[in-house]
């Protein structure tokens, strides 16, 4: 006989304000099989759990239903509670009467009636639950970090320092990411390379870290604790183990017209190149689009001059396959394309630049050796106008709906640095709002205004146009309520940032979800901000949402803590809700194995009694519970109805359907 206990939670007023919890609990007392029904303010609290434990013991309950918040919130909590009272943790069902009921309905009668149906549905299901035992699977003590920007670097260093092996897979020829392109960094104005390069070197020298640059993740199989990842190592045409980074090839290469992406295409580089002086690894790479030898078969000069014989025009992409227990995604961002923003004249005027281009124009290792010169004629700009929120906070659909978060601060930084270095330069900033929350941030911005005399104009810019070689910036000044036109020599656009586009592929491979803006989604916005909903996958840096370096580093370290917490375990509990065939019905047709994305199903020959003391050997499906992820695809495919899913059996789901439809 089933002895079901029902526990209805008020969740303070979250549920009780719209659901008559007492009425629900009372109504459940009349449900067949229910021997105990109670309500309590906070079921998840210590006292609430105590109440459940006591009831399980006193009433000898065989199953419980908790009517509370989403099972995604507290299912695990209540399973533990049940287990502590000696009940199998899988004899617990949650009726979601908060997210799916009290929070979305306003009418008390309606919400109460729905809550009763939801709890009744859970009761119908729990009656068909069977005790399940979680299995165990081993944890591979190695982590993969995808993306070698500051986020990936920090996460890798922290994980490696705890003693675990880490691989960084970086698509570019060097690690470092966007931070390597920056000149000085807010809020302290230390030089970006000076604080980044030592960390890059630490990575390279760390015995636990393996850096795979010019590489991309091609395929991912497996699950938390046990991922198998195929990595494509793109042909570099240079043997990484031989190249010493002497740069002779760069000098000798006759094809020097490739755009220098590291310098935001503001100058050119040879076909064979090292992205920047501090690149890790300090190894050349050939751009096949531009290499004369690779395109026409002629040339081959670099090979002749390379003293160590590192050049290999025959090199092909290779693949490595490695196993990991955990994966950190740190794929970062790019500034948006400005094609939709013609009004700012970015495509028509060389002297309209983005902020990231300005970083290169101010950087000592940049195309102008750190002297601020305008791209068109190489002259010193005397009047510089910044335009904020280009494509950020844009509800028109051309740009991004979100705030890019970093632009107010870096524009203040740029304005300040320019005024510091070139005091005779006039600097104007058009802004919608200045948003500078953060430790020492508002103080930083005020310094730009008060100490450096930067002219902040509240208002939007209507257009930027060229008149007799001058850039005319036409906008509104909302404080003085007037139209202004500023004759400028250089215009800097604080372009919105967006996730690096390749993150879509990465997300698909990892089955990690992504939001409408292509940012990776965290498991819980507040309580699990660095975990993706896919177990074993963690998120660091701008791929999860706009953030600056301090926040990126904090998040990366948080990720590392989570990864370490996972890798120190020897075994993980596996989900016992796996598929199982009813062997008496299975005819070994193979259909289930064909749909299983994990290869969890194999076939075995088994002996069955067929009566009269005889036996027969038949081929039947066999599910490996450590590999099955419990999706249920096979259960629906099975033509003989032999395959079922524990915890979500056909009978259980049918009983839920019935309970909902019962009039």
């Amino acid at each position, binding site marked *: 006989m089933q002895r079901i206990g029902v526990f209805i939670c008020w969740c303070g007023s979250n549920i009780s304000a719209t659901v008559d919890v007492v009425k629900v609990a009372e109504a459940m007392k009349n449900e067949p099989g229910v021997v105990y029904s109670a309500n309590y303010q906070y079921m998840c609290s210590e006292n609430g759990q105590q109440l459940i434990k006591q009831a399980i013991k006193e009433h000898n309950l065989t199953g419980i239903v908790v009517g509370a918040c989403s099972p995604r919130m507290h299912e695990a909590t209540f399973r533990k509670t049940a287990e502590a009272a000696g009940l199998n943790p899988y004899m617990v069902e949650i009726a979601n009467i908060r997210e799916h009921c009290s929070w979305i309905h306003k009418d008390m009668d309606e919400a109460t009636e729905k809550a009763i149906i939801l709890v009744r549905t859970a009761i119908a299901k729990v009656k068909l639950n069977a005790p399940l035992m979680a299995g165990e699977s081993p944890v591979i003590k190695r982590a993969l970090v995808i993306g070698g920007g500051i986020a990936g670097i920090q996460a890798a260093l922290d994980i490696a320092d705890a003693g675990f092996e880490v691989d960084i897979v970086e698509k570019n020829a060097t690690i470092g990411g966007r931070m390597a392109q920056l000149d000085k960094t807010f809020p302290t104005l230390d030089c970006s390379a000076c604080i980044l390069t030592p960390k890059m070197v630490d990575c390279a020298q760390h015995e636990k870290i393996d850096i795979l640059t010019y590489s991309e993740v091609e395929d991912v199989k497996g699950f938390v604790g046990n991922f198998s990842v195929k990595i494509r190592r793109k042909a570099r045409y240079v043997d990484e183990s031989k190249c010493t980074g002497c740069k002779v090839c760069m000098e000798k290469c006759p094809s020097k017209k490739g755009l220098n992406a590291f310098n935001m295409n503001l100058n050119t580089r040879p076909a064979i190149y090292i992205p920047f002086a501090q690149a890790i690894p300090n190894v050349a790479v050939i751009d096949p689009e531009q290499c004369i030898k690779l395109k026409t078969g002629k040339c081959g000069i670099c090979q002749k001059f390379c003293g160590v014989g590192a050049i290999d025009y025959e090199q092909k992409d290779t693949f490595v396959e490695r196993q990991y227990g955990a994966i950190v995604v740190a794929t970062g961002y790019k500034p948006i394309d400005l094609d939709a923003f013609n009004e700012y004249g970015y495509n028509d005027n060389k002297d309209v630049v983005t902020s990231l281009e300005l970083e290169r124009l101010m950087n000592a290792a940049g195309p102008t050796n750190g002297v601020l010169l305008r791209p068109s004629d190489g002259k010193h700009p005397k009047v510089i106008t910044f335009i904020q929120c280009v494509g950020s906070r844009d509800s028109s659909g051309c740009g991004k709906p979100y705030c890019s978060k970093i632009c107010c601060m870096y524009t203040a930084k740029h304005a300040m640095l320019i005024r510091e270095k070139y005091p005779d330069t006039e600097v104007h900033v058009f802004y919608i709002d200045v948003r500078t929350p953060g430790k020492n941030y508002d103080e930083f911005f005020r310094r730009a205004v008060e100490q450096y005399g930067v002219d902040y104009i509240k208002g939007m810019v209507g257009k930027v146009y060229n008149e007799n070689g001058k850039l005319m910036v036409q906008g509104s000044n909302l404080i003085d309520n007037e139209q202004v036109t500023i004759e400028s020599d250089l215009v800097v656009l604080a372009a919105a940032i967006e996730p690096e586009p390749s993150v879509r592929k990465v997300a698909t491979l990892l089955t990690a979800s992504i939001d409408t803006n292509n940012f990776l989604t965290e498991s819980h916005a507040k309580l699990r901000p660095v975990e993706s909903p896919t177990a074993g996958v963690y998120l660091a840096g701008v791929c999860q949402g706009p953030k600056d370096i301090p926040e990126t580093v904090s998040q990366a370290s948080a990720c590392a803590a989570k990864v370490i917490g996972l890798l120190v375990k020897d075994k993980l509990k596996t989900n016992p809700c796996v598929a199982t065939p009813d062997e008496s019905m299975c005819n070994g047709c193979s259909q289930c194995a064909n749909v299983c994305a994990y290869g969890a199903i194999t076939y075995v020959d088994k002996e069955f009694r067929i009566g009269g003391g005889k036996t027969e050997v038949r081929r039947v499906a066999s599910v490996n519970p450590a590999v099955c992820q419990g999706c249920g695809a096979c259960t629906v495919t099975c033509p003989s109805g032999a395959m079922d899913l524990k915890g979500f059996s056909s009978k259980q789901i049918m009983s839920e359907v*019935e309970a*909902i439809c019962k009039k």
Partner: protein
Amino acid sequence: MQEVTTEKKEFVPNIVAFCCNWCSYAGADLAGSSRLTYPANVKIIRVPCSCRVNPSFVLKAFQQGADGVILCGCHPGDCHYVTGNYYTRRRMALLYSFLNYLGIEKERTRLEWVSAAEGARFSAVMNDFVKTVTDLGENKRLTDLRVKEGE
């Protein structure tokens, strides 16, 4: 404000929603925590993946008197189980033609992709579906069968 009509004749459809655990159920949770309303006659059954939904569950729901059945899963390409939602899509296409054969309006079933981040979309989809089914009226066709069966 206008008084709600006292006539109790207004048809309120009963709707079963199957939601996959990873995307759509989480999307429904987000609709809840964002307080985005949809009618109370939608009741959700949690399944690990949309591909766990056997078309027979949908038929069962109609037979038991549901007026509409909606399936929600992760967007194509984003399935937590890699390819589950593609199976669902194919199975549902078959189910539609079967329902058509039975004379049940195709609009009473629907397959929608709702991600964990799309609380607003979840609520919009549910509002729209409820409206569609309300306009169609009561599902008499299969409930009749059920009644006959019960005789």
